[in-house]
């Protein structure tokens, strides 16, 4: 094994020095935009330690899936898991690599972050447009200590297709039958109310600017923009704040099943402290490319063993230990263990 690693390194370095166009000899991959910062940071560190380059282009999950389907890259990444049937159809392997959380952010003047409590029912009906004012009875019931204003709720959502939207709408569809029936889940949906911002930064910008607005963004954006996030009631009935710990709790209690190629939406996880709107980013590999997969998996094994701190620094959540071991066993089962 060690030998192989060394050969791989020398081979790759030599080719890089000789060929100006060294990309061809390195791993190429395309995919989701949501995990891009952490994959890029991992790849940089991996290159420094091993000399092997990884060329990850963030072109969106749709493009990532299409490229691996056509076998133009060594691996693809998707924010939404592919169903086992689809994986069989396209002849792909799939495993999660990193976890992130989607948080709700509000702009109510005078309200501090982490004060407003919401549950699945109120979020669902706010985004459906049924709850129109902040002092609605349902919201007031959850927040008896807050003096909520009689102001119209301005809903902000993503205008572009995104994994963040997929995670959020999947959550709403699972917890709220009305949402499932009227809107459904997907990377882009037909929003009943609200305005659209392009990208996480677009939504963050609107929520920051518009008084009495509510939106959903990735955790990192809420933190960086100092937006006031809300507490959410999880499946176990506890109000939890978004943090690395509660996302971790969601990852720990989510039941990823290797038999289904880890197909799972991590929303509404059952743990006591689990944040209810979390999601994993998935890696897709072509089943017939054993050698390429081994190389890619060597990178991910390295990342699982050494990359946790890098991920946390970027506000992503590393996979829990048990899940990493499940993935190693999955690789072994299919003979793509590095």
């Amino acid at each position: 094994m060690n030998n192989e690693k060394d050969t791989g390194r020398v081979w790759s370095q030599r080719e890089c020095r000789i060929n100006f166009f060294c990309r061809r000899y390195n791993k190429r991959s395309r995919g989701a935009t949501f995990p891009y910062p952490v994959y890029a940071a991992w790849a940089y560190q991996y290159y420094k330690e091993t000399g092997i380059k990884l060329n990850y282009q963030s072109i969106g999950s749709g493009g990532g899936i299409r490229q691996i389907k056509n076998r133009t890259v060594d691996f693809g990444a998707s924010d939404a898991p592919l169903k086992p049937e689809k994986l069989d159809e396209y002849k792909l392997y799939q495993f999660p690599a990193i976890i992130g959380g989607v948080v709700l952010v509000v702009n109510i003047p005078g309200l501090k972050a982490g004060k407003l409590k919401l549950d699945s029912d109120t979020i669902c009906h706010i985004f459906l447009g049924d709850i129109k004012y902040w002092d609605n009875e349902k919201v007031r019931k959850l927040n008896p200590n807050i003096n909520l204003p009689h102001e119209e709720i301005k809903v902000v959502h993503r205008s572009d297709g995104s994994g963040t939207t997929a995670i959020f709408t999947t959550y709403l569809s699972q917890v709220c039958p009305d949402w499932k029936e009227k809107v459904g889940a997907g990377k882009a949906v037909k929003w009943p109310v609200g305005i659209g911002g392009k990208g996480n930064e677009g939504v963050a910008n609107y929520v920051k600017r518009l008084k009495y607005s509510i939106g959903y963004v990735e955790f990192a954006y809420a933190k960086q923009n100092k937006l006031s996030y809300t507490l959410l009631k999880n499946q176990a009935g506890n109000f939890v704040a978004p943090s690395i710990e509660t996302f971790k709790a969601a990852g720990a209690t989510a039941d990823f099943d290797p038999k289904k190629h880890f197909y799972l939406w991590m929303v509404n996880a059952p743990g006591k402290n689990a944040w209810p709107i979390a999601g994993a980013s998935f890696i897709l590999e072509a089943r017939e490319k054993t050698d390429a997969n081994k190389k890619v998996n060597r990178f991910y094994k390295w990342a699982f063993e050494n990359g946790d701190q890098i991920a946390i620094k970027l506000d992503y959540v590393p996979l829990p230990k048990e899940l990493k071991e499940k993935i190693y066993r999955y690789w072994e089962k299919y003979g793509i263990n590095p």
Partner: protein
Amino acid sequence: MKKLKKLPLSDLIFGLISFSAAFTILTLIFSTIVVLYNESSLAIHKFGLLNFIFTVDWNPVREVFGAAASLYGTLVTTILALFIAIPVSIGIAIFLTEISPHILRTPIGIAIEMLAAIPSIIYGMWGLFTLAPIMAEHIEPALQKIFGNVPIINKLFEGTPIGVDLLTASIILSIMITPFIASISRDSFNLTPDIVKESAYALGATKWEVIKDIVIPYSKLGVYGGIVLALGRALGETMAVAFVLGNKHQITPSLLDAAATITVTLANEFTEADSDIYLSSLFYLALILFLMSFTILAIAKFFLLKAEKHYRR
């Protein structure tokens, strides 16, 4: 071709090279149409032409797609942008050629050309971070106050002003196309022979009369040409409007409401379109935009040529 044979070899080769360069354009346009048609064939087959054009619904979850909302947004923003940009640009051109002191002409002229060189994403980000808040806090509430009680017109300014709407997008578009119309108009105004203008002045015409009756009629065609060029640009502009239009597939009379244009839909949804029919519908939208721009520009060109002939006589 007969003539070419008599030419020396070097000229023949040069002629062939320039011919193939020109021919590349035709090939490119033709292959673009073929690719767009091929990629959208699934959606064409499923939705048909008229059904697609007149369906407002755009629902990726249910896989129902229609172009009506995007088409509406494209036309409204383009028309509104021209409506704002044309008078301003012609004003700029008149000032630069007839009124401005010589010392100011070059700096202002260069500044206008610089506007055209700014990448559209910069306009987009500026729109999102700077213009949209100004629109939402000052201009749009003022418009609502002024027109709030005027019947019919008040329908244009209904809703909560947020700054992410047709009006903001049109204003950004108009800023983007102003340099095109202004610099082309300026150049055509400059072509008015001094002798004609001086004769008019000699007959006692005022500056206003000279501009109105001599300069503008004389250079009409050039101005039209600039407008056509700006129109093409406005129809296809993407990044500048993608950030301030909200990508909402709806047809609304209010200019203070979010909407979508074809390019905005493409920019927002292309990367994450994972089902085949979704992707195909996006290509179908692109095909429609291509044909629409082509038709509009062809019609404009046709009238331009007709006017030119009329003038020559």
